[in-house]
């Protein structure tokens, strides 16, 4: 049986659609109302409040914490300052990505790692011989994500001005409604936003306080379906959707290096040994076999494909995760599109896709499969940078 998150008593009465999904065994709101668009609009226009408690959260502390984290992830964790956050993949010894997530350095020797899939065993096994304490805090920490142009105003009001100056990818302890929380300027929307890490048994007080102070700014409880639209617009990949963990890969085709995910910038080779370093050096040398890119499907051919079937364009207003083939303009399959959505914001049909490296250059012309009235058609698309929407306010 799935169970509620620490916020369930607040989210349940508001979920008028009764549309829940099961995430890591927890009930998570897909969308609070049948009409998802107002929730999505709150991410881009006001302040969206999203319960992301089911994330996995691991604490790594002790004298060897910097060394351990540094050994596991591809980013330079040892060089992180206290209060810094990095987004990084971590790999298996053959340089293939197990997962990606965020690493927080709260203090010199206190880190936390957050990920969408379990990683406790991986961290623990790598910790043998290190003077560290590795704790699975997943169930004891709730997390609320507050995203949107008014998120700073709302959070400032809730913390009496404490987070106004918090920089992009920084974290800090603070208090909301008398509860000790941590706040990071992170999120999965590509927008201005914050994530609030709260002791599970006090999460409800924080929710109540945010909803109260956020009312003048139209704070809106927001489900995962709306957030998914925003993350595709931001070009953020999702495990098990846009790539497969090396732990769960069935075939070699599923294995990916960080370079192939567009995360080469988070691989710092020139430092002490870390898991996969040697293989990654070789992978970097050899070049990617395939790349995760963005696709923009062209409006005119898309419209024509539907008009030819005497239909108005039928566009996915929420993210469709069913993979479809992508072809070169000569007709050969060169990859697959894995997260597809009509962005109402950008007025474009966009997708995240994995393409053979030789077709993955920005500007490359390809064709994505679109089914129109039971017929599989191919519609012209262009390879673009997957950061379809990254507003300046995200970093400001």
């Amino acid at each position, binding site marked *: 049986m799935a169970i509620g998150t620490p916020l369930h008593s607040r989210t349940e009465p508001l979920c008028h659609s009764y549309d829940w999904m099961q995430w890591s065994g927890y009930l998570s709101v897909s969308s609070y109302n049948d009409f998802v668009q107002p929730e999505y609009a709150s991410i881009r226009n006001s302040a969206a409040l999203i319960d992301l408690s089911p994330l996995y959260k691991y604490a790594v502390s002790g004298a060897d914490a910097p060394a351990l984290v540094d050994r596991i992830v591809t980013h330079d964790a040892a060089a992180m300052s206290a209060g810094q956050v990095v987004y990084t993949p971590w790999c298996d010894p053959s340089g293939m990505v197990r997962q990606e997530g965020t690493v927080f350095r709260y203090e010199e020797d206190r880190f936390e790692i957050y990920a969408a899939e379990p990683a406790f065993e991986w961290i623990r096994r790598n910790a043998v011989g290190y003077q560290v304490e590795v704790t699975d805090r997943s169930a004891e920490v709730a997390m609320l994500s507050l995203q949107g142009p008014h998120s700073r*105003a709302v959070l400032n009001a809730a913390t009496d001005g404490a987070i106004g100056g918090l920089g992009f990818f920084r974290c800090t302890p603070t208090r909301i409604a008398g509860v000790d929380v941590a706040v990071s300027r992170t999120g999965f929307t590509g927008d201005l936003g914050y994530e609030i890490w709260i002791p599970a048994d006090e999460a409800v007080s924080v929710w109540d306080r945010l909803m109260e102070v956020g009312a003048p700014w139209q704070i809106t409880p927001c489900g995962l379906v709306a957030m998914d639209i925003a993350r595709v617009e931001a070009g953020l990949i999702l495990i098990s959707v846009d790539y497969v963990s090396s732990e769960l890969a069935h075939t070699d085709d599923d294995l990916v290096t960080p370079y192939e995910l567009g995360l080469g910038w988070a691989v710092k080779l020139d430092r002490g040994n870390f898991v996969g370093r040697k293989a990654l050096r070789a992978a970097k040398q050899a070049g990617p076999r395939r790349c995760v890119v963005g696709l923009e499907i062209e409006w005119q051919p898309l*419209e024509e494909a539907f008009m030819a079937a005497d239909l108005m*364009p039928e566009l996915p207003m929420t993210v469709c995760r069913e993979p479809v083939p992508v072809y070169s303009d000569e007709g050969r399959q060169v990859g697959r599109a894995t997260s597809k959505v*009509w962005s109402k914001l950008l007025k474009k049909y966009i997708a995240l896709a994995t393409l053979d490296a030789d077709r993955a250059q920005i500007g490359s012309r390809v064709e994505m499969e679109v089914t129109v009235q039971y017929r599989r058609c191919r519609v012209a698309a262009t390879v673009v940078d997957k950061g379809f929407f990254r507003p300046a306010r995200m970093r400001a």
Partner: protein
Amino acid sequence: MSKSYDAIIIGGGHNGLTCAAYLGRAGRRVLVLERRHLVGGAGVTEELYPGFKYTVCSYVVSLLRPQIIADLELPKYGFELLPLDGTLTPMRNGDHLMRWHDAGETRLELMRHSAADAEAYEHFAMLMYHLGKAVRPMLSMTPPDPTSLAPATLAKLAEIARTFGKRTDYLYDLAKLMTMSSADFVEQWFETPALLGTLASSGIIGTFLGPRSPGSAYVMLHHYMGEIDGEFRAWGLPRGGMGAVSESIASAARAHGAEIRTEAGVERVLVKNGRATGVVLEGGEEIHAKVLVSSLDPKNTFQKLVEPEHLPEDFRTDIDRYKIRGSSGKVNLSLDALPDLTCLRHLSADQRIPYLSGAISISPDIEHLERAYDDAKYGRHSRNPYMDIVIPSLIDPTMAPPGKHVMSLFCAYAPYELAEGTWEDNREAFGDAVIDTLAEFAPNIKDIILHRQVLSPWDMEQQMGLTQGNIFHGELTLEQLFFLRPVAGYADFTTPLRRFYMCGSGCHPGGGIMGAPGQLAAQRIISDTA
């Protein structure tokens, strides 16, 4: 100083700006001349009181062509449509009718009023889908002249016949919609008074017709044939108000090299030997161009900008006869709190929000609309007006300070020609009638109004240059649509003067923030001057 351009566009409304953007995109040197201090015409956002932004006249988008949004990359320049979840019709007995975006929820709500209507509604929606699809190609074509036997024209007429020929059953429905009154049409489908009133009200927007006047059913179709992201009949709230839409088109135009000058009103068009050669600005400056384009309405264009001796007599008569009667007013309010609607009192404060986040229509039955029209017929503003209301700040926090709101009220009727007095004398009384009528359904409204702006048709004429305050640059009645818009023989964006074109809503396919007249005119100019 006399700088020369490939094209000068008179008037910086959304069609003029669209025309400029397409011309710029085709490599032409374009200058847009706008009389006011800001572009947009009747599509403007103005902050008359600090923190409160009014989408002064036009307020929602549906008809803006997707091709234009894509071609001009408008989202890049700030264009964003926010979702309107539905339409609330408060009823006099304290009940309400709510139509949601979701078809299942709407069906359940309609069943509360009439099971027959609940079923009929889905068939009605299906009919509108097919009719919208049938007329859609006409929105991106220059109307063919049916009196012409030119092969290209015959081909176009054949194409239109083919489009309709595919679904002959819908052809009959289309013929009905073209000829009936909106009330008669919806009464063939439904019985719930609040549903009838609200649906029929789409037929009276911007037109001096009542719901029982033949021809109003077409106006209803006009408001149903818009699309957002492939969905017909969807209306969206532009983030930042309609001004943001106009500004996004202006930015696109500038990105394509167009020059836009504000506070540069044009006094007249210079004509030499039957050819337009340039303009004279108020203030005397002369600017020349190879092509002149007016985005102003046909009466402004031909009765003010061009001296009569340059136009043929029959053309001048046709323009005199062009119907452009103003029939609506606009009220914009700054509010201290949300309105407390009697019909929502049974809900908690949080539960009410979705009901207020779409359109609120004061159209409890057809009689309400028809009686409002009766007043207008005899030269009075309606004592109990029809209203189409949105609260932009509920969905778009940029429009009001935190915790406060703005409310946009489109109101009918307000006839341009008053039997007694002037609009300057009557304006506030009209505003009072609007508020008094709203107060019947939202008793706290007078207590929460911080500021009020009332625009009569006369105000719209004075401020925005809309002749007689008609919001569509001419009524959307069949005798002045398609190949008859604005006048017979000139439905192709040309005028009797060489090198002088029209690109505003007074051209096909008409008004409603479509952008199509601007785009089609640009296409014509580009091909004429290739």
